[in-house]
């Protein structure tokens, strides 16, 4: 048991240190965005560029739950689960939490446009900064069954076999700010983040000559400058969120680290 507590304290200290150091990574990103002026597509130079504009899409993909047309999406499915564990005193304790059971993402090339022109964007390895756009709740048990049957009847279209996806019929849209208190084990939440055509676009990436087409410039993740951020937020919002992320990393990293070290020291009988 003592060994387990040792391991926990070391994990706490390491995780704290990693979170703390991550704060510096966020800080450098924060500074880079702040220090890079906006370029216009018509006249952007090769190298790191910051573009503000909109998404222009030739083709689209659709999000898995809301079937929204987009050029990028990521999703996460969380399930309300019960956890049972036995403590050192032999007592059984139970806890419940929302656990991620599935996640994924998809991205396709698109164009960024501003008032001066458009440019091809290859989003491979881009760091997408997009907030949750839609959240759905799927209730477990009898209530959930009613939901599924009700939606099945509502969506029934004998001519369109493509919307026979039973898995998404019981999904109830919920607001991001809504806290649910009456959760039952087995309830599921579906989170969707995506960037639609015409959405606002903030882009920080490397402009280079397209090797597949002569006289064509594209934006991608550079070899020398690895920063490649794509977001539908404004620069101000993005910088604001990075600032809080940076402060949070320093504060929580330090707290975790101190807790880890203190547990270790108390185990050794030093404090």
């Amino acid at each position, binding site marked *: 048991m003592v060994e387990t507590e040792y391991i926990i304290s070391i994990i706490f200290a390491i995780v704290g240190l990693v979170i703390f150091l991550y704060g510096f990574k966020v800080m450098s990103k924060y500074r*880079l965005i702040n220090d890079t*002026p906006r370029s216009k597509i018509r006249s952007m130079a090769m190298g790191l560029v910051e573009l503000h504009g909109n998404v222009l899409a030739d083709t689209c993909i659709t999000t898995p739950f809301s079937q929204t047309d987009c050029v990028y999406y990521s999703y996460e499915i969380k399930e309300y689960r019960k956890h049972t564990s036995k403590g050192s005193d032999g007592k059984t304790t139970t806890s419940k939490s929302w656990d991620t059971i599935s996640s994924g993402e998809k991205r396709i090339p698109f164009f960024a446009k501003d008032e001066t022109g458009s440019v091809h964007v290859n989003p491979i390895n881009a760091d997408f900064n997009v907030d949750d756009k839609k959240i759905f709740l799927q209730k477990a048990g009898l209530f959930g069954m009613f939901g599924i049957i009700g939606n099945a009847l509502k969506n029934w279209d004998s001519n369109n076999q493509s919307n026979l996806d039973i898995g998404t019929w019981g999904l109830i849209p919920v607001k991001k700010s809504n806290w649910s208190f009456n959760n039952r084990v087995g309830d599921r939440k579906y989170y969707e983040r995506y960037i639609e055509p015409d959405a606002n676009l903030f882009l920080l990436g490397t402009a280079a000559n397209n090797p597949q087409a002569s006289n064509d410039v594209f934006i991608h993740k550079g070899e020398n400058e690895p920063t490649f951020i794509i977001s539908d937020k404004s620069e101000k919002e993005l910088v604001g969120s990075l600032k809080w992320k940076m402060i949070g990393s320093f504060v929580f990293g*330090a707290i975790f680290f101190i807790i880890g070290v203190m547990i270790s020291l108390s185990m050794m009988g*030093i404090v």
Partner: protein
Amino acid sequence: MSSIGIGIIIGIVILLLLVIVVGYIISIYNSLVRLKHNIDKSWSNIDVLLKQRTDELTKLLASVKGYMEHEKGVLLQVTQARTAFLDANSVKEKAAADSSMTSALKSLFAVAENYPDLKANESFLQFQNRISAIEDQIADRREFYNDSTNTFNIRIEQIPYVFIANMLHYVKSELFKVDEADRKDVEITF
């Protein structure tokens, strides 16, 4: 908790704060260096276009010479502007040369209106369009250069950047100022 425990916590907190302060100073230093290089890079990016415009101008002059023999004043103005640009070294000199070039080009294109044969000349139109596109790009990059310079100039006067900037002997950079009359792009009248 024993006094040793409290001492250790205080020690760790001070150590972490020191790490943050040192990291912050390094990030300020890196930021200022980056801003300085941004200015140099954005100036080089304008320079490339100014040179490109001068090259296009040489070809343009060759194409109009036969048609505009009686417009020696305008042609001389363009040639002088081109020479002034080639001789310019500092940002201020190049900005002045750029202004003269823009106004000389305006005059040239305005006078070209009186020569229907020239107006119909394919290669003249091509050069004119190319120069006009380069002018637009120069205007954008001038804006970008001034943005970079302005950010740098503000930053080196702000606390805490001013302390590091003084250590690095960084001074304010010149903006690329353009005469009010030359703010408009070259008009294509054909």
